[in-house]
């Protein structure tokens, strides 16, 4: 069996530091997910099989999304964003959607900070995986679970 991609686990201190405010997702630190083959393949394609580091990525996702049509997804990556040290690209993936890609973002040092926020469609409860590519070719990753509830009624 080929070696699977290393998935980042968040250090306990880091996780606790980020669990403060309401609405911030719970970090699962789970090494694998049920139907994540498509995501794993996608990550491998992007990283070329390189190992993926941890830390520096904060995810802002709801724990429970009342509606899967427009779920907030935001991330913030700790980076000086200088010409020698910046985040080049960030890929957002969802492992329970018909296809794993949600969006990707290309950053430049001119932005001064690495963060973005958008809204995505989630077909069901699933993991959101954010993969960041640095200018030096290294990668970092974070993930979290978003529970998606089916509404009750409402015309």
């Amino acid at each position, binding site marked *: 069996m080929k070696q699977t991609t290393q998935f980042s686990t968040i250090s306990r201190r880091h996780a606790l530091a980020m669990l403060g405010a*309401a*609405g911030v997702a719970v970090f699962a630190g789970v090494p694998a997910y049920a139907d994540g083959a498509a995501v794993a393949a996608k990550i491998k394609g992007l990283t070329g099989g390189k190992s993926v580091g941890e830390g520096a990525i904060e995810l802002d996702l*709801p724990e*429970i*999304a*009342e*509606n899967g*049509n*427009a*779920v*907030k997804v935001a991330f913030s990556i700790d980076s000086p964003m200088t010409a020698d040290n910046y985040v080049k690209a960030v890929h957002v993936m969802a492992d329970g959607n018909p296809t794993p890609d949600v969006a990707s973002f290309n950053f430049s040092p001119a932005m001064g900070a690495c963060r973005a926020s958008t809204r995505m469609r989630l077909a069901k409860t699933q993991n959101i995986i954010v993969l960041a590519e640095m200018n030096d070719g290294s990668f970092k990753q974070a993930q979290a679970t978003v529970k998606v*509830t*089916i*509404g*009750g*009624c*409402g*015309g």
Partner: protein
Amino acid sequence: MRLAVTITMALSLIAGAAFAKTPYHDGTAEVIKPVDKSHPLDEVVSGYNFRKAMIRDVQDDDFENPGMLVADHGGELWDTVDGSAGKSLSQVFAGCAEVPLDVVGSIYPRFNNAAGKVISLEQVINMCRETVMGAKPYKWESRDMLGITAYIRMQSRGSRVNVAVDGKASAAFERGKKLYYQRVGQLDMSCAHCHEDNYGNYIRADMLSQGNINGFPTYRLKWNGVGSTHRRFRGCMKNIRAKPLPYGHEDYVALELYTAWRGNGLKVETPAYRN
């Protein structure tokens, strides 16, 4: 049938407090005391306060709220000359509405002298277009009509809903009240079962609000777009397996007046962002 429904309701309705992170449940909501002593409830709360932060945050930001895109479209139409009289709605609307522009959005549906009955905002707009502007009426749920009604109501954003239900409006008010409490459909339910008896509770995974309409036309995630109160009424009726009435039906106008009255005192929030 009724017993089955009662049991189903009892099983599917869960007290909201256990799960909720909503302003209504944590005490931060604006709660209005009804002005009218005949109001069946002792508290009036906007649907905003029954939603989680992910939803409320979007409504709070005009650059995140996609309902604003529809209101922007309405704003453009508002100033556009249309029809044989060569006028824009902005030039003639106050006359058609019979009230100043800064209150229209908070007091319709209203008894309109020219129409001779209680009419909705959509009906004032079309009456204006047809009789004054010489323009074609908008379809009830068209992007143009939703845009204009959203734009007009947005001009009253922050002021309090204040529909009149006395005098010449009382017949429509009584009709609307009767409809609100009337059981309909295969599920044999009325508006009151959910929105009066069970607001703040969960029905499956949705938290029930009081069913106030101070944010309409509203963007709903369910619709991935903006819709009118009549669309909402029709949807509810389909859910309880009742036959929905056509858009603009007199009963829906009466129900709209009554439902607006239940929310008198709430701030206008159009365009709201909801589930």
